[in-house]
């Protein structure tokens, strides 16, 4: 299965989930599939979309939060799995697009050459729900149950590495604008106050 096909399945089944995307391929593909402003697209802090998503999920316990992570990012912060398991946020789902390469910089191989079993690592960290899906029809078959289950849950989407750079364009806004679009979208949806009366 290709990364874009897997992301498309997630996007179609997203429902009302708020998404946090790891930088690079995950963010760009999620933007291409959803064009959504109630998603946060990391531009830096590689590895820490996971922690950002956990903070968001703990703060909005009644909102489904989906983390669209990638294997390169997960490896930058494997400790996030311990923190995620310990906090046991029922509203947080963790997806890992695993292509075994650093796609955004030209598909250079990742450490350990695609042998790492991230679902097994998550189980060892305390996740009771963790699995790897390698085929598109299998993802289509399992996605309703994945959407319905409680977090913390980790789903590794094993996708084919693609040749060279993945040239899906990034979202059309960035920096402070992303902060305000995302924050305002959450204020509208959940009736919360992200920014104070003077706008900061």
């Amino acid at each position, binding site marked *: 299965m290709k990364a874009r096909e897997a992301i498309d399945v997630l996007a179609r089944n997203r429902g009302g989930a708020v998404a946090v995307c790891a930088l690079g391929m995950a963010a760009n593909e999620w933007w291409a599939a959803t064009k959504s402003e109630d998603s946060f697209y990391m531009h830096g802090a590689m590895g820490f979309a996971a922690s950002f998503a956990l903070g968001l999920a703990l703060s909005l316990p009644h909102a489904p939060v989906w983390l669209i992570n990638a294997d390169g990012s997960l490896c930058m912060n494997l400790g996030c799995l311990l*923190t995620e398991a310990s906090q046991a946020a029922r509203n947080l789902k963790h997806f890992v697009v695993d292509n075994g390469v650093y796609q955004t910089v030209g598909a250079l191989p990742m450490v350990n050459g695609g042998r790492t079993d991230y679902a097994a690592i998550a189980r060892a960290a305390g996740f009771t729900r963790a699995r790897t899906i390698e085929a598109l029809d299998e993802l289509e078959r399992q996605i309703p149950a994945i959407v319905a289950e409680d977090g913390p849950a980790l789903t590794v989407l094993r996708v084919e590495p693609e040749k060279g750079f993945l040239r899906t364009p990034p979202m059309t806004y960035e920096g402070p604008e992303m902060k305000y679009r995302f924050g305002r979208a959450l204020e509208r949806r959940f009736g919360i106050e992200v920014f104070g009366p003077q706008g900061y």
Partner: protein
Amino acid sequence: MAMDVAERIHEQLTKCGITLAASLPDDWVAPLIERLAADNHIRHVRVAREAEAVAICSGAFFGGVRSVALMGATGLLTCTGELATLNLRHQIPVFLIVSQRGSIDDHRIYQEVQGRRTIPLLQAYDFPYHILDRPDDVSSIPDVFETCRMQKRPFVLFLTRRLVKGEGAS
């Protein structure tokens, strides 16, 4: 940390409306962390690396939750990249309470570089900071927290050895 100081800081954090704390302990901030962990009104998240605390607090900001990240000076050095590329880039405020290790009264050789280079590093990034040195300074925390929100960037509140260990502690 003198118990009354931890209690006073805790009280001021409550006054700020803080309901989430993410921490990785340094022995100077450990008593404060354990006080916050015991508070049922605060969600406490123990992390494996300090940058996790930074990103957790950043995510919490978008959930409308006020938060604090607690760590030692060495931990602050480990997460300057994340503070720059997440918080500086998107102008996301994050309030950090950090032990000011490596000060002239901190005779630990492994803290020496932190003492010399942490503040110049913050200045290079243009991250503001404030130093709490005396128990009477603790009441400034709500002003520091509001300034952090207004300045929309990482803001470090340092706790000195004198504050956490008490005057004349060995």
